[in-house]
């Protein structure tokens, strides 16, 4: 039901997302990002009311992990901040906190905007089940989710927003207030190329609504329109990517770490996935997914091979190249160079087919690297070699 675009995005932290919310007129509680207990105390004193203090990390589930605390006084806020800072959650150290006024919440709503792949349009999702994960609501009580597809030509108009608010049971002034939030969030989503923007929960308070939490994931491919976020990109992967994945990112490699022992390099996402599958069917377990993409140079391929061979878990390397734009001889050169530079003795199996296949095989065979024409057989060999080494 809530099938949306994911995978390709810069995830902003709550305090950053809320800054964008404010610029787009979405009501948010008063709050400030702090990095020391002293700042937490001072800001709480400035606010003069009870606060909630939330860790700022690019991972979910902070509540369950103890990353949210309440404080009634500046001193309590300082204590809470002291306890939270330096905490480890999902492998990450807490360095930033968000201190925010504590709300008197009447009701909690879910509100999100994302892209509906099937309908090729942005979609507004709203649910009375605020605070819950929307995927969970979609699975358990899909009737509690109101969906509105945004016509890409006409856009989201006030009356569309009114209808969504209406369907969630709001009338009168509350309907108009809720609709205004929907309109602003949708405007934000489009302007910021958000793959997902979410207010969960959107808190209904005495005199309106306010964003108690905020999520804003920006389409990586659109960062040329949002230069101010480009430098935030690598940081946003913290927590989501493993250390090796982070390193691969910084080298520009499309790499996913897996838990096996056979290093996999392929050209093209589909072929590389199929390579993993084939290794799995042969009883092996891949250590990674590494897609060279199209038209890689010998240097690029060498870097990739070095990166995978350098993984101590890798017992054997399986390179699967279907020569098209990528040339088999280039792949061969890269592999041979990587092997020479690293001086490793790990077994390498190369399957190649297509453009300059003969030249490639020749280079590899001369260097003593096995080449095969069949993907299945190459996988079988790689599994055997990994087990043996």
């Amino acid at each position, binding site marked *: 039901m809530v099938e949306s*675009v994911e995978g390709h995005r810069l995830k902003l932290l709550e305090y950053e997302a809320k800054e964008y919310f404010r610029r787009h007129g979405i009501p948010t509680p008063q709050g400030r990002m702090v990095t020391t207990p002293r700042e937490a105390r001072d800001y709480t004193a400035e606010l003069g009311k009870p606060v909630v203090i939330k860790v700022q990390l690019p991972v979910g589930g902070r509540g369950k992990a103890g990353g949210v605390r309440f404080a009634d006084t500046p001193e309590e806020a300082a204590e809470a901040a002291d306890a939270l800072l330096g905490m480890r959650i999902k492998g990450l150290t807490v360095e930033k906190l968000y201190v925010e006024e504590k709300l008197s919440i009447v009701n909690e709503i879910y509100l999100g905007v994302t892209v509906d792949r099937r309908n090729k349009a*942005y979609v507004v999702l709203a649910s009375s089940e605020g605070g819950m994960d929307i995927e969970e609501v979609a699975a358990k009580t899909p009737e509690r989710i109101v969906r509105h597809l945004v016509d890409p030509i006409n856009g989201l108009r006030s009356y569309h927003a009114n209808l969504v608010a209406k369907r969630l049971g709001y009338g009168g002034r509350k309907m108009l207030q809720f609709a205004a939030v929907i309109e602003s969030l949708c405007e934000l989503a489009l302007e910021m190329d958000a793959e997902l923007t979410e207010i969960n929960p959107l808190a209904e308070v005495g005199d309106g609504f306010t964003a108690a939490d905020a999520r804003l994931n920006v*389409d990586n491919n659109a960062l040329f329109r949002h230069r101010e976020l480009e430098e935030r990109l690598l940081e946003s992967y913290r927590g989501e990517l493993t250390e090796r994945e982070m390193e691969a990112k910084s080298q520009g490699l*499309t790499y996913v770490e897996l838990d096996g022992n056979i290093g996999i390099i392929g050209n093209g996402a*589909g072929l590389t996935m199929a390579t993993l599958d084939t290794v799995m069917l042969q009883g092996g377990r891949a250590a990674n997914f590494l897609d060279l993409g*199209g038209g890689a140079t010998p240097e690029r391929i060498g870097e990739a091979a070095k990166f995978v061979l350098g993984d101590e878990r890798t017992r054997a390397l399986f390179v699967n190249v279907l020569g098209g734009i990528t040339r088999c001889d280039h792949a061969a050169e890269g592999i041979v160079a990587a092997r020479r530079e690293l001086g490793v003795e790990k077994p390498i199996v190369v399957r190649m087919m297509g*453009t300059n296949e003969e030249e490639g095989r020749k280079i590899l065979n001369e260097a003593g690297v096995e080449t095969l024409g069949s993907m299945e057989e190459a996988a079988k060999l790689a599994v055997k070699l990994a087990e043996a080494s």
Partner: protein
Amino acid sequence: MTRFIDKDTRVLVQGITGSQGAFHTRLMREYGTRVVAGTVPGRGGQTIEGLPVYDTVVEAKESHGVDASIIFVPAPYALDAALESVEEGIDPVVVITEGMPVRDSVELMARARLSGTTVVGPNTPGLIKAGECKMGIMPAQVFKKGEVGVISRSGTLFYEIAAHITRVGLGQSTCVGLGGDPVVGLDYVNVLRWFEEDPETEAVALIGEIGGDAEERAAAFIGDGGFTKPVAAYVAGRAAVPGKRMGHAGAIIQGSSGTAESKMNALRDAGVDVGELPGQVAESLKELL
């Protein structure tokens, strides 16, 4: 849609002076594709690969007549390039460009729908009518004119399976790369409808991957009798981990949706012969035909 492309299709290359554009223009012409001109704003009047370069599609069309366009323009300019062709009534528009923002794809598809234009891609290897016209970046040598229609979301896996089809002694009619992005112009059902009517296609190889539900919808379409010719399929990504993107922006398992198993089961339930390994698709087709 009476045809995608054939030997008579007059093809325009948008972004022809870039390294990819120029390189593939050469390869497409070597294959026999009737490339008539290229465009790059600001480069009008130049010549590349012996072809005239125009600043705008309007000018190229006025001088040569253009039926179809293939786009190698960098992602930030791809939307405008595609809209330019859509506006000029060019059909299909094949967007090879990788990394197009989703917002731009959403806008492109909406406008193309309004004018009834077929957009292939973005992030597609393109399409090919074996032996007649190649509008894409696929390696020519794996294709042979024949009876199998191929539909794929990925590139190299598509070549892999096409090569298997050729090796077992069959060949391809038209092959369509849908593209690896979350929002693309065509889905399996669109192409299956076309293959159902295409007299040159006797069977279909359907190549899927994790993410989204395009394969499940194809299965439902086939199961409901919308497509009546034999289909063999392969779905990549059984070894993929939920939440990890597998190379393509669209290839990601979210929670329990978009898994290879779900897709394979749906296709099997619809009577499709689903292979465990890519090579099995060609074997199945050999038996089915």
